[in-house]
């Protein structure tokens, strides 16, 4: 009896305010999609960090013959075989070093051609222009300082580079995008909340006859407010559902199909669909609670009980 009564009231209320309801649903959907997107972005960054920090090493670039004039560290010209040998032995003696890989200029050239082979710059390069290097894998990436202080000023060493700096810039960019998404979500949320408050106000006004009578005959305030709150929560859940579809669809089209980033960027380990599903419960719960709460607060102002 009660349930049926409340449900029919909700239906009437939502249809009466159809345009406003649609506006609420869309704005809730967008803000929740941004929220879910930001959560996925954070997840993406941590996945990538784990993956890259594992791969990324310290690179010790050695002088090649072209550097003699241009680089103050390489005034003696190209690195000699003896210097290389000494560097390698010393590297292997150091505590945090796990593995040392020597990459000669031909290998560096091949790598570069693999990655950027189509660009005009790559086509004009020759193997002897590429830099020879040692790739050093550390058991703890934080111990970069040990390597850098030991080898920066050695003859034949052009520079020591912590490759984490490079990926960290990428992560900073990704984090920045997450922050932007969160800020946008905040704005959309404010818009959604204001729409909900306004919807409730209009709804309360158009139903003031009913609510007035309910009040007079002694309906409890909970019972009077419930249809309004359920209305907002229902619109919120529809919005959350739409946001879920957007997130799932976004993942589908951007990563697995359509844009197909998974194939285009094989080096990046993307978040999976299971990560998307892990985010959805948060999206739905927020979609349910946030509009309901907003409606409840709006009613205190616009519905005398």
């Amino acid at each position: 009896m009660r349930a049926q009564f409340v449900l029919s009231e909700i239906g009437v209320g939502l249809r009466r305010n159809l345009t406003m309801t649609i506006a609420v649903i869309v704005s809730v959907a967008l803000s929740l999609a941004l929220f879910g997107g930001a959560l996925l972005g954070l997840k993406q960054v941590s996945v990538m960090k784990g993956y890259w920090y594992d791969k990324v090493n310290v690179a010790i670039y050695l002088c090649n013959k072209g550097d003699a004039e241009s680089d103050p560290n390489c005034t003696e010209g190209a690195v000699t075989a003896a210097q290389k040998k000494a560097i390698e032995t010393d590297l292997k003696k150091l505590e945090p070093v796990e593995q040392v890989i020597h990459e000669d200029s031909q290998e560096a050239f091949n790598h570069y051609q693999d990655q950027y082979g189509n660009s005009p710059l790559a086509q004009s390069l020759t193997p002897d222009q590429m830099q020879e290097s040692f790739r050093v894998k550390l058991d703890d990436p934080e111990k970069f300082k040990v390597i850098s202080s030991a080898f920066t000023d050695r003859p034949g060493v052009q520079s020591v580079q912590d490759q984490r700096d490079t990926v960290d810039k990428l992560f900073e960019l990704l984090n920045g995008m997450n922050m932007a998404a969160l800020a946008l979500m905040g704005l959309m949320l404010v818009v959604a909340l204001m729409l909900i408050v306004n919807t409730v106000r209009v709804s309360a006004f158009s139903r003031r006859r009913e609510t007035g009578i309910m009040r007079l005959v002694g309906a409890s305030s909970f019972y009077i407010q419930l249809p309004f709150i359920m209305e907002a929560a229902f619109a919120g859940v529809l919005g959350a559902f739409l946001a879920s579809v957007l997130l799932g669809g976004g993942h589908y089209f951007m990563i697995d199909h359509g844009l197909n980033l998974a194939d285009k960027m094989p080096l990046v380990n993307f978040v999976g669909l299971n990560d998307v599903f892990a985010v959805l419960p948060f999206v739905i719960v927020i979609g349910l609670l946030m509009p309901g709460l907003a409606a409840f607060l709006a009613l205190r102002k616009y519905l005398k009980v």
Partner: protein
Amino acid sequence: MIRFDNVSKTYPKQNRPALRDVSLEIERGEFVFLVGSSGSGKSTFLRLILREERASQGQVHVLGKDLGKVSNWKVPHIRRQLGTVFQDFRLLPNKTVGENVAFALEVIGKPRGTIRKTVPEVLDLVGLGGKEDRMPGELSGGEQQRVAIARAFVNRPMLLIADEPTGNLDPQTSVGIMKLLDRINRTGTTVVMATHDQNIVDQMRKRVIELEGGRLVRDQSRGVYGYQH
């Protein structure tokens, strides 16, 4: 049933109190007319009984409860024991007569069986038997007010508050409504009725309470309207 102890009411942002130092008592089963010109404090008096407003000073007791001390969430339970009727009927135009009456029971969570049994009974009582499925718009003013009375009475309240129930009706129809209210009063329900209708007050010869500028100026059993307006 109702007791006012030195009750004053001043609305926010107004200097002149709407009700000043009113003390009176209304016993169970009484029929009381509340008279006075517009702005004399009749509406405030009724709103205090319904706990739509709280007294600024003094105590209002209704059904043995000090309304100043009743917390907000308990107010609905008090209102369930009161019935209210207004000049403008306040029916829901998109619901039938029967649904309008049933609405009062639905929203306080009465079971469907009770509602199905009670609504026709009370419609019979107010003389609208068989008009359950009509829309309020199809009824005359007097009939609409009967629907409103049925709605107010369907939960068998101890106290019926009527704010100018005949204000929109012609004299003949008004007499019918008064007979109905009198019959309800005879079942033991206390009736407090604010009115401007001199003929009715003079004919009924019930207790008359007169307010003027927020003060109680007359409280007379078997009284008459008593002043020209």
